[in-house]
């Protein structure tokens, strides 16, 4: 049941539109309900071959030798593809926006870094014949010690997962192993608090579980081009990735997609297109490469796990004085898109609340598991879980109703956010009020009268003096610890200097300007 609350923010909106705001039936409804909408796999082409991959049996191993002799002569086999057949067998997805280093092969050559990593592709007349040939391939592995825990991966002497990033962390700004967020002085904030609470949260990996699994069909077209039917969520992103890996001009390809059976972030990685096209190039025949459900669940990239530590200070009156966050994104064996989510996560801190002192260190960590990728709420979902569970605990500690606790701390128009832009167009207060009303959750009158448009700004618009650290020092992993009373306060996990560094120079712009951007900017290795 959905109710449109047109009464709220009515003065900011015209409601004189003709087509906008109507519950018009979907343009593609008839096709969907009659089963006639065409998806990528509805293109069965004459002479179409099927591609399947041999996947690593180990999470971490050196490949000594790959023997495909028997498979090459197996029934129905048209072509065996190995890493040396891939024109540019090293890529990272965000190289298209110049962010990060090429770190992932299409087909593993000398080492496998996660169980299920593709090593050899077989193109055959039928999926069954492809699988039967794969069973005849022999790989001589030298198993290596694997690391699966993000904090273990950061310890000295941990196995190196991915030689491109020998410290098992993505590199930010060409110098740091994490993305920082610094706003005010959290130590001062903890000193001003009546309660300090530090907690550990763990987000699970999640399978996207789309109805339609990842896949594509590539076919030679006229005039030296290739047509590619694909389930991608990002047509040109996939097209340009293929052009890079296969080392051909982008107009070699005619990508067709656009009607996809669910994505949720799991169809951005261009998993199948490069090999399908390469198969078509090498055989001159249409080639179909589709993940089965088990492959999709085991080796299709999941939402990555995240481990999050939050330490908060809160006063008896319910105001949060400081929030310190350390989070580890489990990227799996390769970067894919996790490096991006880390920065988005830093920008999201400290959640939709105005907190005068905020400190964040967010890491993108490599482990020997299936590479993680984007999923609905990328970079934010796990952090929201951690922050909102923490908010509930803080309200409990301070003895304040959890709804009212959120209203006390909610950000409002004119407040300064921790990433140093002014909050505008906020509506958290109203959402809490309306949800309370719907749930018949009693709010006191003063809380019902609050507004996102009132009482923000002023001192809340200021950027507090923020200490700049001379160099990054890696925080040692902390045990889960809860300090309900400041008297029992234990030292923080982060060994920063005791003497406060000199305050930072004032921010360049005295008045905050939301959306102020510097063009042609450099962010890490991302250049435009």
């Amino acid at each position, binding site marked *: *049941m959905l*109710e*449109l609350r047109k009464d*709220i*923010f009515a003065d*900011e*909106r015209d409601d004189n*539109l*003709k087509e*906008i*705001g109507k*519950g018009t039936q*979907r*343009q*593609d409804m008839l096709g969907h309900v009659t089963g006639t909408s065409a998806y990528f796999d509805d293109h069965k082409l004459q002479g179409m071959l099927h591609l399947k991959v041999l996947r690593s049996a180990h999470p971490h191993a050196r490949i000594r030798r790959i023997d495909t002799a028997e498979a090459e002569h197996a029934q129905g086999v048209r072509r065996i593809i190995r890493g040396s057949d891939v024109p540019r067998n090293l890529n990272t997805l965000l190289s298209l926006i110049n962010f990060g280093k090429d770190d992932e092969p299409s087909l593993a050559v000398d080492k496998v870094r996660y169980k299920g990593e593709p090593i050899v592709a077989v193109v055959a007349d039928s999926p069954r014949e492809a699988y039967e040939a794969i069973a005849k391939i022999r790989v001589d592995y030298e198993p290596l010690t694997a690391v*699966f825990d993000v904090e273990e991966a950061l310890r000295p002497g941990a196995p190196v997962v991915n030689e491109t990033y020998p410290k098992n962390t993505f590199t930010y700004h060409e110098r740091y192993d994490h993305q920082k967020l610094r*706003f005010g002085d959290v130590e001062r904030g903890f000193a001003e608090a009546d309660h300090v609470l530090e907690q550990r*949260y*763990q987000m*699970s990996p999640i*399978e996207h579980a789309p109805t339609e699994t990842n896949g594509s069909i590539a076919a030679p077209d006229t005039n030296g081009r290739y047509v590619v039917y694909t389930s991608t*969520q*990002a*047509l*040109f992103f996939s*097209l340009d990735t293929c052009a890079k890996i296969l080392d051909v001009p982008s107009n070699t390809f005619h*990508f067709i*997609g*656009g*009607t*996809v059976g669910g994505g949720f972030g799991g169809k951005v990685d261009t998993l199948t297109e490069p090999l399908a096209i390469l198969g078509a190039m090498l055989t001159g025949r249409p080639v179909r490469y589709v993940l089965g459900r088990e492959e999709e669940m*085991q080796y299709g990239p*999941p939402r990555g796990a995240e481990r999050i530590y939050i330490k908060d200070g809160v006063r008896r009156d319910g105001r949060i004085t400081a929030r310190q966050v350390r989070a580890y994104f489990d990227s799996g064996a390769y970067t894919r898109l996790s490096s991006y989510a880390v920065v988005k996560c*830093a*920008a*999201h801190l400290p959640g939709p609340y105005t907190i005068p002192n905020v400190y964040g260190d967010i890491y993108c960590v490599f*482990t020997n598991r299936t590479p993680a990728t984007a999923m*609905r*709420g990328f970079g*934010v979902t796990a952090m*929201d*879980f951690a922050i909102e569970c923490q908010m509930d*605990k803080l309200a409990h500690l301070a003895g304040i109703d959890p709804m009212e606790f*959120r209203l006390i701390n909610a950000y409002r128009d004119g407040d300064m956010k*921790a990433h*140093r*832009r002014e909050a505008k*167009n*906020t509506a958290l207060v*109203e*959402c*809490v009020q309306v*949800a309370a009303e*719907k*749930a018949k*959750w009693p709010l006191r009158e003063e809380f019902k009268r609050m507004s996102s448009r009132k009482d923000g700004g002023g001192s809340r618009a200021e950027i507090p003096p923020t200490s700049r650290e001379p160099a990054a020092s890696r925080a040692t992993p902390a045990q889960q610890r809860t300090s309900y009373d400041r008297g029992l306060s234990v030292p923080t996990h982060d060994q920063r200097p005791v003497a406060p560094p000199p305050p930072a120079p004032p921010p360049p712009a005295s008045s905050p300007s939301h959306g102020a*951007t510097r*063009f042609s900017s450099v*962010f890490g290795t991302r250049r*435009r």
Partner: protein
Amino acid sequence: MTRHRGRGIASINYPIGMNLGGDPSQALVHSNPSGKFTVALSSIDLGQGMKSVTRQICAETLGVPVEDVYVDTADSDTGPHCMGSFASRGTHRVGNAVMAAAREARGVMMEAAAEELEVNAADLETDGRGNIHVKGAPHRAISTKDVAIAAQFKQGKTISGRGIFLVPLSDVDPETGEMSPATCYAHACMVAEVEVDDETGEVAMVRMDSAYELGRALNPRLVEQQLVGGAWMGVSHALYETPEPYYPNPAHGPRDFVEYLMPGPGDVCPHDIAVLERPAADGPFGAKGPGEMCANPVLPAVANAIFNAVGVRIDDLPITPEKVLRAIKAQGGARPQSRR
């Protein structure tokens, strides 16, 4: 055995579009000789309704009925570049590109109509039903079909438009994290009510009440589809799903939907939703986007409701019956918190 009820809340915001911007989308709009319009995109419809919402945006901007617009998605030979369907960017980024293209096409259409009616284009308006007429004089009108015929066969004009929308890329300060991550944010608050069985550790959803602020609900039925479906994805994340049940141990991964659990029809509960609209300055008709954020408040709201019901905090997802039961045992039985 006792079943304990509890309520939990969570409130969130969510950035619209790719973090830091720098993620353009383009659109092309053109008319055929009958005054019917095609929108060419390379954007993807994942089932979320990309075709439908851009169709409504195009129709509204052109001033023609939605039936006169057809959206063609995701052909790299005909659709201009789009970054992709992710990061809650479809409505905001692609919507704005379509709006810009439709505005340019409308300009040509009004000029062509003005020439036919022998008036100034500034004096014309569309009626949204397929006609263009002089403001205040509805009888001095011409149909969009007649305008299209005249433009193409008599005046030699192409009723078409190009659009692009780009939020310029922001940089990030390495030391402080200063950045411009997004131009607008959606908001939500969720109240979840659960029932926890203290003998089995099972958690059942009882009801959800929520408020979502989305800028403008361009199509309330598509919004409802996202919010209802997204909330259940949130429940599923909170209580059911994991490909690694003993993470970080990677063993026992699922191979199919028998082993990978999700809520089924029998687990569904009522969900009462309010939608608020505080228009974004740079959104198409003020719209932000409901796509990703609708799942986010559900995970913590469910966890907090479980605490309210039986007094245990499960900070590791998913909150399986095993974890609930172990936690209840560890504290010596269920400890229901104050009912609220």
